[in-house]
């Protein structure tokens, strides 16, 4: 399994568990999946990273579920005054990508993050123009019919290819990484 897949699975389950006490399920040993053409029908948070690796991480969550989670967190009174679901999606994406950035930084692949942006709409699809790598991870929500999707598109800088640093995050070495399970 690619290390980015492992980091994304670990980060997403940990962020949801710690920040909002929601248990997501993802089989950490499951094989990687092809990036499906999932139409966005809800809210997608995105955070880009630039540096030794360039790319974008997208977190896709249904709008009703995002509203439900923020309602549980802030209560009816606050949610009646302001819709926090967009902020919620942006913040979660920021934390997941922040974890990814930290782990890549530990391996010498320093990156910087952009502030989160949020896309809402119907029948939009996510595409990346010729990414070097693309990763898709889906998570089941404990006891719910909801699914949360994370897309990661990565473009490797020529310098990173040449330096051989890419070997650090791909191939057999990835399986040696210790992963904190949800």
């Amino acid at each position, binding site marked *: 399994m690619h290390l980015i897949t492992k980091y994304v699975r670990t980060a997403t389950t*940990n962020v949801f568990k*710690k920040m909002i006490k929601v248990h997501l399920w993802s089989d950490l040993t499951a094989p990687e999946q092809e990036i499906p053409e999932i139409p966005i029908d809800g809210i997608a948070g995105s955070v880009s990273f630039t540096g030794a690796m360039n790319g974008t991480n997208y977190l896709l969550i249904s709008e009703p579920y995002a509203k439900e989670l923020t309602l549980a*967190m802030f209560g009816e009174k606050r949610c009646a005054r302001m819709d926090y679901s967009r902020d919620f999606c942006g913040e979660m994406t*920021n*934390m997941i990508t922040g974890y990814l950035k930290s782990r890549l930084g530990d391996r010498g692949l320093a990156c910087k993050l952009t502030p989160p942006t949020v896309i809402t709409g119907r029948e939009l699809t996510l595409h990346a123009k010729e990414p070097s790598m693309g990763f898709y991870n889906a998570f089941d929500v404990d006891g719910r019919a909801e699914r949360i999707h994370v897309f990661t598109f990565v473009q490797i800088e020529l310098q990173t290819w040449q330096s051989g640093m890419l070997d650090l995050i791909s191939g057999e070495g990835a399986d040696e990484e210790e992963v904190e399970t949800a």
Partner: protein
Amino acid sequence: MKIVGIDDSPFVHAIIKDALSECDVVYEEYWNGAEALNALMYGPPDLLLVDLHLPVVCGIDLIGKIRSLKSFDRTPILVISGEITKEKLVQLMHFEVRDFICKPFTNFEILRKIEKLLPLPRRKPAAASTA
């Protein structure tokens, strides 16, 4: 007893408030460094929680400004951040930051960190009404 939290995320404030819900403490939240600096002119709180990634005035600059104020030279500061690099740690040590916590964290984790810096009185249970 007053704790001031400075973070641009409503979720982080919500978790801190949840963590402090059983403590007899006032929690004031600010969403950016400039807003917090204005409010802090009225005097130091018992503890400051500062996110490093803040709009308007970044967390490190904010901590530097706070520490330059005489009445804040002993105010304990707990830093909240998505990541702490060695360079940032050195800067934070220079400003005598007492501890840090990385996001994501649970309400129990932040409460443990806060209580290491500031013993928190528990809220007294409401007196039972007599018939």
